[in-house]
């Protein structure tokens, strides 16, 4: 019998409920209001007083309204059919909702109960299994969606029966398992899991040792993100966060992509809704939407559900990781999530931390980032969640609590710079400020050199140095004037510019340049390093600028042409000619 309570206080979306029976922290409850049921989550219990945050508007709500506690935390439904869906933060299927405007208290099924899937068994009678083990699989779009022993099952079970090959609906019994006491448990294709609890159905979570190809050079070449790694992109508005996230979601070498649009512009989500079903996924030849799940809680949707949305997205990602898949999770923006935490903390009259954020913000953030990772599953297969979050620092100032807390939690830092954005150097990631801790991992270095040629990391550090020296020289030139510095200052500066224009910068709107494979990146990196090592002859500093502009332009023509095509080779030849003009023999 579920606990019943009664509303005794209302302040915006914080509601105080009086309840006598068992209530748990983070338990879900429903407040009855004019024929609808408003979903809420317990956030504090003080004696008989239970503080709940309502995921909807509380307009018109009255003291005395009945509250029904659900007996569980906020859960998501996991099963075939999650891909290609557009959910809200509470996993309601936005496409199933009626009408143009969202209705308060309207909740939908997450999955299609009547859809049939082709099932193929993987386990057999008498197998010993535990949570997360694969019992069978169905085809969901192009992936083999594993039907697993529910994550809530503790200990070992013996398979009593598994359904044979055939067509089934998601709620059909697919297997019967017997526990240690001989009790039988039926398993369907669907299971539920509380979003705030990490799914830990794996044996080991090693340090990441592979690199995830994103096709974006400023990531892959300069500051690579590991498969199963974490990174974040802070940047002021207008610096290109969204374009970058869209590029990652389109191109990253992941099996599937979960996007949490958390408190951001609705028109940006509409762009994904409109474009992704049309765009081809170069890896599978299918539409991009088929590997994408969107959790949309736009900025005008209820604030409390915004917090839930990032957890919902992470849980879905963990579910697919348990099937041995490479998942990429993008959250835009985690600052909005932190702000939602601040609003609630404020209403609860908690003592505030810096900038009014809750004191435990750093803990909440690092806890969330730690759910990403590369794992070995029970059966030895691997799966991963690579997580990249954006941060929207107030006033573009990186010394604010959300950026600082995230910096402690994430291993890669991609600093978007207003200055670069203003001078249209896109992606506006500052190649010097940004870092990837993974470049310090011996296993990653080994992996990169094995896959991209033995000189790869040496070359990467070489061009990083070139960028840094170029920047320093540029400052000198600015102070002393063009003719006040030795001639080679100018070449040093321009060599850094070559790296910037050819490698750091990339045209996200060009259909060839937008995506650069590792093969191509290796080729271009070697090419650039070769040019940087050449000694050029100039008579005066005035010759340096036009010459290098020509070099850069020719390099860019290469970037714009199909890799290894005739045009590419023609442009490369032309570049050779330009280099010979001033090369010191």
């Amino acid at each position, binding site marked *: 019998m579920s606990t019943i309570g009664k509303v*005794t*206080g*209302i*302040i*915006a979306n914080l509601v*105080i409920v009086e309840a006598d029976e068992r209530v748990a922290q983070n338990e879900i409850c429903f407040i009855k209001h004019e024929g609808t049921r408003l979903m809420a989550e317990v956030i504090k219990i003080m004696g008989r007083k239970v503080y709940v945050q309502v995921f909807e*508007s*509380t*307009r*018109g*709500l*009255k*003291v*005395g309204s009945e509250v029904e506690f659900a007996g569980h935390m906020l859960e998501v439904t996991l099963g075939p059919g999650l891909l290609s869906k*557009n959910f809200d933060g509470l996993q309601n299927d*936005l*496409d199933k*909702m009626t*009408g*143009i*405007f*969202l*209705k*308060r208290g309207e909740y939908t099924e997450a999955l299609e109960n009547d859809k049939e899937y082709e099932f193929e068994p993987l386990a057999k009678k008498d197998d010993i299994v535990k949570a997360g083990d694969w019992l069978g699989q169905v085809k969901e779009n192009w992936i083999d969606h594993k039907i697993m022993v529910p994550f809530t099952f503790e200990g070992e079970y013996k398979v009593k029966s598994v359904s044979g090959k055939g067509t089934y609906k998601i709620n059909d019994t697919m297997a019967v398992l017997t526990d240690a006491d001989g009790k039988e448990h039926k398993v369907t294709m669907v299971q539920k899991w509380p979003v705030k609890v990490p799914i830990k159905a794996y044996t080991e979570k090693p340090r990441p040792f592979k690199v995830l190809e994103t096709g974006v050079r400023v990531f892959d070449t300069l500051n690579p993100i590991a498969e199963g790694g974490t990174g974040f992109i802070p940047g*002021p*508005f*207008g610096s290109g966060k969204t374009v970058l996230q869209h590029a990652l979601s389109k191109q990253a070498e992941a099996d599937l992509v979960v996007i949490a649009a958390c*408190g951001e*512009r*609705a*028109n940006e*989500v*509409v*762009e994904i*809704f*409109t474009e992704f079903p049309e765009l081809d996924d170069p890896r599978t030849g299918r539409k991009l939407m088929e590997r994408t799940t969107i959790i*949309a809680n*736009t*900025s*005008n*949707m209820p*604030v409390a559900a915004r917090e839930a949305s990032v957890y919902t997205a992470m849980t879905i990602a963990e579910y697919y990781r348990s099937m041995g898949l490479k998942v990429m999770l993008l959250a835009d923006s985690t600052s*909005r999530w932190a*702000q*939602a935490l*601040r*609003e609630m903390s*404020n*209403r609860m009259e908690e003592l*505030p931390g810096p*900038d*009014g954020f809750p004191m435990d913000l750093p803990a909440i953030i690092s806890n969330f980032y730690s759910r990403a990772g590369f794992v070995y599953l029970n059966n030895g297969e691997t799966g991963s969640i690579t997580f990249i979050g954006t941060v*929207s620092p*107030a*006033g*573009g*100032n990186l010394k604010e609590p959300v950026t600082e807390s995230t910096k402690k939690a994430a291993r890669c830092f991609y600093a978007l710079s207003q200055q670069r954005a*203003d001078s249209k150097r896109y992606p506006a990631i500052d190649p010097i400020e940004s870092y990837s801790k993974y470049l310090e991992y011996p296993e990653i270095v080994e992996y990169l050199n094995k896959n991209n040629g033995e000189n790869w990391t040496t070359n990467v550090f070489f061009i990083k140095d070139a960028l840094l020296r170029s920047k320093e020289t540029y400052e000198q030139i600015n102070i002393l*004037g063009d003719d006040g510095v030795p001639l080679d200052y100018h070449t040093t500066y321009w060599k850094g510019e070559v790296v910037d224009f050819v490698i750091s910068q990339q045209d996200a709107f060009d259909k060839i340049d937008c995506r650069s494979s590792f093969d191509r990146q290796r080729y271009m990196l070697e090419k650039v390093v070769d040019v940087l090592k050449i000694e050029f002859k100039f008579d005066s500093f005035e010759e340096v600028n036009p010459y290098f502009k020509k070099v850069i332009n020719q390099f860019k023509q290469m970037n714009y042409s199909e890799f290894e095509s005739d045009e590419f080779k023609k442009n490369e030849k032309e570049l050779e000619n330009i280099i010979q003009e001033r090369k010191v023999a």
Partner: protein
Amino acid sequence: MEKDTKAFQRIYTKLFQLTKATVSLQATGIGNEELAIVDGRLAQVVKIMEDIVTLQVFAGTEGIANDAEVIFTGKAPTLKVGEGLAGRFFNAYGEPMDGGEIMGEEREIGGPSVNPVRRMQPSEFIATGIAGIDLNNALVTGQKIPFFADPDQPYNQVMAMVALRAQADKIILGGVGLTNDDYLYFKRVFDDAGALDRIVGFINTTENPPVERLLVPDMALSAAEYYAAEKNEKVLVLLTDLTLYADALSIVSNRMDQIPSKDSMPGSLYSDLARLYEKAVQFPDGGSITIIAVTTLSSGDITHAIPDNTGYITEGQLFLRKDSDIGKVIVDPFRSLSRLKQLVIGKKTREDHPQVMNAAVRLYADAANAKTKLENGFDLTDYDERTLDFAKAYSEKLLAIDVNVEVDVMLETAYELFAKHFTPVEVGLKKEFVEKYWKEN
């Protein structure tokens, strides 16, 4: 202490707590956010604890006694919508300023948001005739964009101009802390243009209590939703000045003892502003709401919490700047940005629009560099000199806000300026466009 007047309406006369902005009393059966009349002034429920109800009195509590009459209305703030709205001006409560009644259906303001999957991608170009906007920062129906301007800049004039040229079916003016002079200005300009029948105004002037302002944007947007969602009309909403709206929010949050965050603004500022701006939408049946707002800055500081949060919400921003070279106000091509322009330029406008736009801005940037060189006492090259000449002409003929021409004329003008000052190679347009459109002198 209570007596029945009408059915469901009880009068309370015992207030036990009064602050500058709120009153508290004992009452039962009251809904959250419900409206009440306190001593003849409108108030709204902001907090309920057991049987203690706290009301925020919009006009302030000056002179209210602890035995004042409180009548609960049983409903949240509403607006009566109907054909009769057009051509009228209303106060923050949605009452016609010239008296009289509006016939129509009563709607709660600040209603639910549009389901994101039911939105359409904005795709219709809004021509304003101002080249600084149409050429460099094209606006699209369903977009939300503010002017970031210092208080001394003529943002209200520019906004009125944009509104009249924008060929919207309805223009809804939300005056938030408008000076009475500016209110009369808007009224006169719309009247002179013979456009009054397309205008609906919700006006809170500086003469009215600041907290009342909080109702104005919701009133304006509810009227906009009526025309856009039900009548499938193209609606343009003008909100000026949302900095004053945010200031009013901070007053309320301060009186509610909430902990302020950056710049003394409430922690919920982002959500509060997003709730308004996100009403901008392209509906599937052709109706749309486009929001042009004003955020006044304090001496150009965009890192302040109000413009900063606004920038993260809106789809770009427009900066006005006085160009001392030509003595006119221009739309700053560097700091202004329309995030949605890509959806229309070169698609709904001529194919070469994006290239011409970028080339002109790049040359203008070269001029800015030349200027810095000049200021630092370095010599100018011939190219530098030419960029400076170009910049002046570009400012005068295209960026100035008094320009009013079609996009094709803007493009032609740009080519004329290019040809006068540069070679095609220096401008760097695609070859096919040079062949097709370049104008030899």
